[in-house]
């Protein structure tokens, strides 16, 4: 009786739907932009709370909309606390490093910098975990929220270890690191009494990751082949023509390289998110995500074009577009028993996303 089917009820009907539209969002986008400018950026915490309140409330999950209860004030305070903790640390490094360099103690300066980056990576991982935990704790559905009882300190260590290992392998083993981190992060999260499960493996992702490595190199090699054939040509027929051609090919080679890398990375992430969603579940609910590389590319190019043709105002729609994109491609299958879905007993974190904010992590 109380079991809700999340699987398509009628043909073509989806369990997760985005019901917002850009005209309805316009007053929020416009006033947010104005207030951010007029407060030297301080308003951005309240702006993102308003944006999320809108986006969550326009996201239908089975039979009811989501709700965002995070406030600008708590995000602002969280940010201040984190800055108060980090500022002395940064200031110390900022003064210590040039002081050591100026005294010719290059090794000591390098060592300090190394430790500094280690600490940054650790805090970066910690921040990602805390941001997810905070977002779940402020996300409500049917009067129930999510959360986690894990403070994330261990996750920071695991993150540091896995990133360090994959860096040592020149990131060849990155898919293994990324997938295990996804699992650790999500397994620590819950919604109501239900714990998330995640068993993402690198199995289906190896080829895409290999492409990130080889396609740019292959593209360069192919370009170089063309380059050399033209070089051979210019030996025989001396003139200014081939030289001009050389310049163009050189530029094209560089372009090829710098276009191939992000395209291949996108190609990897598209698959990564599809597999990650499919490997994650909550109670009887299974997830799916169906965005292809081309659709991701369309999202990014669309964002870029929007920002350009609106002279920057379109930036205020990036969060909206990204969220709508995620929701439109997200699928949920299975059933959920609302009588068993009791209130979360997890501790609701107080510090909002201070760390994630300080490290500039998180798209929405």
């Amino acid at each position, binding site marked *: 009786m109380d079991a809700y089917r999340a699987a398509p009820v009628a043909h073509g009907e989806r369990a997760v739907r985005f019901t917002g539209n850009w005209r309805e969002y316009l007053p929020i986008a416009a006033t947010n932009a104005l*207030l951010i400018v007029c*407060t030297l950026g301080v308003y951005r915490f309240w702006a993102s709370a308003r944006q999320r309140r809108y986006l969550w409330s326009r996201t239908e999950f089975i039979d009811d909309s989501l709700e965002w209860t995070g406030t600008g004030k708590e995000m602002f305070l969280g940010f201040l606390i984190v800055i108060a903790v980090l500022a002395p640390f940064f200031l110390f490094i900022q003064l210590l490093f040039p002081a050591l360099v*100026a005294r010719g103690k290059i090794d000591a300066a390098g060592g300090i910098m190394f430790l500094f980056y280690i600490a940054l990576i650790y805090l970066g991982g910690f921040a990602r975990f805390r941001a997810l935990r905070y977002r779940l704790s402020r996300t409500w559905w049917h*009067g129930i929220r999510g959360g986690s009882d894990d403070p994330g300190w261990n996750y920071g260590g695991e993150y540091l270890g896995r990133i360090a290992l994959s860096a040592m392998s020149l990131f060849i083993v990155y898919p293994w690191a990324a997938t295990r981190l996804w699992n650790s992060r999500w397994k620590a999260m819950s919604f109501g009494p239900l714990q998330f499960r995640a068993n993402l493996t690198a199995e289906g992702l190896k080829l895409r990751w290999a492409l990130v490595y080889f396609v740019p190199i292959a593209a360069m090699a192919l370009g170089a082949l063309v380059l050399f054939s033209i070089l051979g040509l210019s030996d025989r027929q001396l003139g200014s023509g081939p030289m001009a051609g050389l310049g163009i090919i050189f530029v094209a080679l560089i372009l090829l390289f710098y276009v191939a890398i992000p395209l291949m990375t996108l190609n990897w992430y598209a698959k990564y998110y599809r597999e990650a969603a499919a490997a994650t579940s909550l109670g009887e609910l299974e997830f799916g995500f169906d965005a292809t590389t081309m659709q991701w590319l369309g999202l990014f190019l669309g964002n870029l074009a929007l920002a350009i043709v609106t002279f920057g105002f379109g930036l205020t729609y990036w969060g909206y577009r990204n969220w709508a994109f995620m929701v439109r491609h997200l699928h949920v299958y299975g059933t959920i028993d609302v009588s068993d879905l009791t209130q979360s007993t997890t501790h609701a974190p107080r510090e909002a996303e201070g760390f994630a904010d300080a490290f500039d992590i998180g798209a929405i």
Partner: protein
Amino acid sequence: MARLYDGVTAHPHNVQASARAGALELSQDDGWSDSIDAALLKRLDGGKRELRLGRTDRPGWRLVLPADAAAELQPLLGREARYGHWIDRVGLVPALIAGAAITASVLAIGYLAPHWLAPHVPMSWERNVGRAIVGDFGDLRCRDPKGQRALEALVDRVAPGSRGGPNGMKVAALDVSVFNAAALPGGYIVVFKPAITETDPEALAGVLAHEVAHVRRRHVTEALIRELGIGALIRLFAGNVGANAEQIVSLSYTRDNEAQADSDAIAMLKRAHISPAPTAELFKRLSTETPQFSAEFLQSHPLTSKRARKFTAAVDPHARYEPALGRADADALFDICTKT
């Protein structure tokens, strides 16, 4: 008919809702009823189709009504939270005006305060900061004694007496292959190797005079206050808006001080009977040469043809200019970084 979530389970309950005497009355067909004081109710964003209410005393308690129920319950609901409490209280337009005014004054103070404060910072403080940052430059410093004496002689030529006393300026050549010269906190003036080996002493005299002027005018202190004070503050809340605002302020600030330092340098060269023409030539050359060569110098000293022209215009055709350094000193200076 309304949907009630009790915040304990996700199970929805169908209830009837009505307003009565400053309270929200809820009832069910089976006889259950409840009355909630209006003061406990808060209005949440339910979109166009729904009215969504929460309770301040019970997290997760939600009442979802059709949008048209809003009319009947209106007396209970109070004002909807929109922009955030602190802005809702005064209204959007007053908040925008107040915000713009505060922002403008913060920027104005950020622009002017370092200029006002700098002359009042005790030199001894600045010297300590400088010593902490600079130390003795370690292995980077070019320590050839003859070259060092020649470099000091050049500073004495353009700014007699500037190196004396406890707050005297200290000049050092650094073995760094970037064209640059800079004034640092505490009266330190550093010249990088290419600024010595790729110019003649007259042009270097112009560059040194410029840096001496920065120190004397307390521009360095000003920059330090700016960097540690308002710069840090603005960057804290940055976003792009803050960063852009800071850039605008610091650019115009730098240009002002640069122009003043140039004027001072020209006056110093004149007193020392050194021609400003080689300095003008140097600026002209730097602004046209390959970017790698002069990028660092350009960053801290925006070079425009205007600045070169200013030095060119200062050339007095009737003046009797003298070399900045004697032959032996010039040679020693050139070799300052080659001997150890």
